[in-house]
């Protein structure tokens, strides 16, 4: 079925049309003619693969990416700076980014071009065909891959617009401001100032990185005016986990303040 789909896709390629039209009758397209290199069957002259990603080690004839994938380094492989093309003026240390050329025939890395900034070139290292990854053990599935994937906060993480709206109790003094105290601010009672929407609601719109996991409570600017539960007892801190997507909306209610009955 997959091959059929590939064959159909290949039939739409302009090159294929001109080739097939050379004969008198329409030919059945061959999958090997146009399939992507990493899905194709070995051919006499496979194309080299361009891979990029963060590297964590260059040792014992292997280059290891942050994915944990180790690839064989060809003897005499050239290591240059991606920008200048010259030998890098900085140490090749963990965390550096690299674009590597993988010779599909030998399965070895022929060139390594490094950069201190992320490179969006070629195929991400995470998608390297598994047959090129050097590993002693056979791959095993991980039935309980518990850690969240793809939400690692970094400069690559996408900013998410988070809108928090809180309803305050009616006895909130009208001239008071409402704030969010967060664990990321050391529980500063005035960490995030909210804007009044109307007589009973305040709102704040923030840009937070995907993967951020924040605990917070609402205050009126001091810790003696922190929110309480309905009975006036201390409530557990609220939790805000920024998942993916473009926007996230949170509606909250404060029932009581610590200093007001």
């Amino acid at each position, binding site marked *: 079925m997959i091959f059929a789909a590939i064959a159909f896709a290949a039939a739409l390629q302009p090159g294929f049309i001109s080739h097939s039209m050379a004969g008198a009758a329409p030919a059945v397209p061959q999958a090997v003619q146009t399939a992507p290199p990493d899905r194709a069957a070995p051919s006499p002259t496979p194309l080299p693969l361009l891979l990029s990603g963060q590297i*964590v080690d260059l040792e014992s004839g292997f280059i290891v990416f942050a994915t944990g994938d180790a690839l064989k380094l060809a003897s005499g492989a050239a290591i240059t700076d991606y920008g200048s093309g010259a030998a890098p003026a900085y140490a090749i*240390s963990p965390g550096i980014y690299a674009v590597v050329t993988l010779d599909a025939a030998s399965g070895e890395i022929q060139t390594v071009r490094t950069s201190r900034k992320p490179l969006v070139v070629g195929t991400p290292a995470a998608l390297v065909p598994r047959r090129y990854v050097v590993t002693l053990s056979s791959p095993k599935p991980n039935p309980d891959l518990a850690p969240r994937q793809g939400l690692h906060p970094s400069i690559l993480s996408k900013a998410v617009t988070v809108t928090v709206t809180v309803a305050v109790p009616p006895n909130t003094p009208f001239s008071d401001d409402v704030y969010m105290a967060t664990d990321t601010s050391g529980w500063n009672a005035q960490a995030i100032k909210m804007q009044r*929407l109307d*007589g009973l609601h305040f709102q704040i719109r923030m840009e937070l990185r995907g993967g951020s996991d924040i605990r917070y409570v609402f205050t009126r600017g001091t810790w003696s005016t922190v929110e309480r539960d309905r*009975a*006036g007892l201390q409530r557990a801190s609220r939790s805000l986990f920024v998942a993916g997507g473009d926007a996230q909306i949170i509606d909250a209610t404060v029932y009581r303040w610590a200093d007001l009955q």
Partner: protein
Amino acid sequence: MKTAIAGIALALASALCARAEQAPQHSSVTIDLRAQRVNYFSDSATIQARGDVVAALSNGVTVRGDACSIDLSLRRIVVAGHVRLNAPGASYGGAAFADFLAFRRAYFVPLSPTPDRWTFLNDDYGHPEKGREMPGDAFFLTDLGDARPFIVAKEAVIDPENYVRFDAASFVFLNGGIQTPALPRYVRNFSHNQNFGVNSLAGATYDIPYGIAGSSTSLDTAHFRYDQQRKTYFSFEHHSVFGQAGYAVFSVNPITQPAKQWSWLTYLPTGTSSALVFDAQLFTYQYGLIQPLSSNGFADLRLTRALRNSSVTAEVSQAYGNLLAPNDLGYYGDPSHSYTQNHPTTEGVAWSGYDQRAGRSGLTFRLLSGAGHTRDVFGVGGSAKRDVESLYVGAIVSTPVYRAPWGTGLNGIYQGQHVWLSYPNSMDFQTVTVSESKRFSSKFALTASWVFQSVITRRVDETLASPNSSTGLVPQPASPNGLPLLAGTLTAFPHVSNQALVLTAAVAPSPAFQFTVSAQRNNYRPIQQPFVAGPPRYQAAADIRTRLGKTLFVDIGRAYYFDWAGQRWSPAFSIQVSEQ
């Protein structure tokens, strides 16, 4: 009564100690990290180390490598480059090691004789799961771009859930422009436990905290502070937390000046639906820690219990006018520290209903009531009476926000309270607020409000001095004569009221910049005179909050009084720098 309060305090202290002993041992792993350079990036909650990295985990694992990155948000540690992993009964060499501490999973890429992918489950380093699939970013070293570290050191102790401790920390300011020499031990607390934020120090214009000791359950902080009255001074504060809900906070403020305030705040859950609160403050005038020239304070104990649709609070407090033994002179040191004897005791019970809906009207209401008793052998509130009983009832009624013409939202709130005193006397407090808001966009909102407040007292001279809140006699904020401050003014007439018309515009073009401006007209009755009664008739105020750095904000505000008794501007700008 002194003995009783002291006994309660002792019993509470014993309970706290017992609770601390019973608390389960914290199971989180701490990391002792050493390297040629250890950088702490507070903005991104990340620690990175470079050069001869040694990370010793408290579970017996030691990892050496070229670089290390610890993400405190995700509780992950990655060590990469020429890695040597030593664990109880096992030793391996490889390319990278990652421990996802929150999940008790560690990942490792050995290189000899051939690269492989190993997973260690539940700290079992003797039996790796070979070939097991790993998370796609298992060994990703957090990319911080061109960010500058906040702290540079060579060693750090890290509890990824709670704190990081540096023994010789250099602080970096102004984007790398200034780096301090190595300073004494510094503890940075970032615990999820909100009780580390409880503040027992009085306000100051500037406050720079410096954590000097700490653990997952405690934090000691020195504060360098400034305010206009005391100028610069140092204070000390200690936090202890018990589980997620209990805490005890102690402070001395200031510690470097003779007029000291000693504070003790305690919150102790006594079940899923009740809690005990004990607050005490001691005010002394003493040089260093020698015999004080004056000493007074109060202790307050509250027990709150949730009921079905309401809650009840029982409270007892004792005010100590003078804690020094009387002497023949009648003063201590000099006549400005005279002996004053005053021992009011107040007990009370307060009941508060939950917000309820009034049928299908959309209105919500809350009912309040309480009773109290105040005793002072020298006379309550300056009168000849030694015992005064009080009783109060109150209600809060609120409308929802109704949609009004021109896309505005209209809302009204009524708060009323009636108090009976056994003098006899009675008091009525009322506040009516009507507000209309219009949100023009997500960045601009306008609010117009009318606030009417009134206090009616049968006899304004027969009120209570220093009562506590459970008796219903001190509407917030507290005032010296037991009657509420109305529009910031002490209530001095049998019937006072204030009508305030306020127009507020809030502009927030981005999360990094907020601007609020308001215009207010006050009409205070019976008389509105500068320095006698009532607030300024007209006033305008503005407040700007803007970003100073990635996590630092400054808030600047000032009011204009339109020549109120020659006063044009409020005495000073209010400036506050805070961390987000």
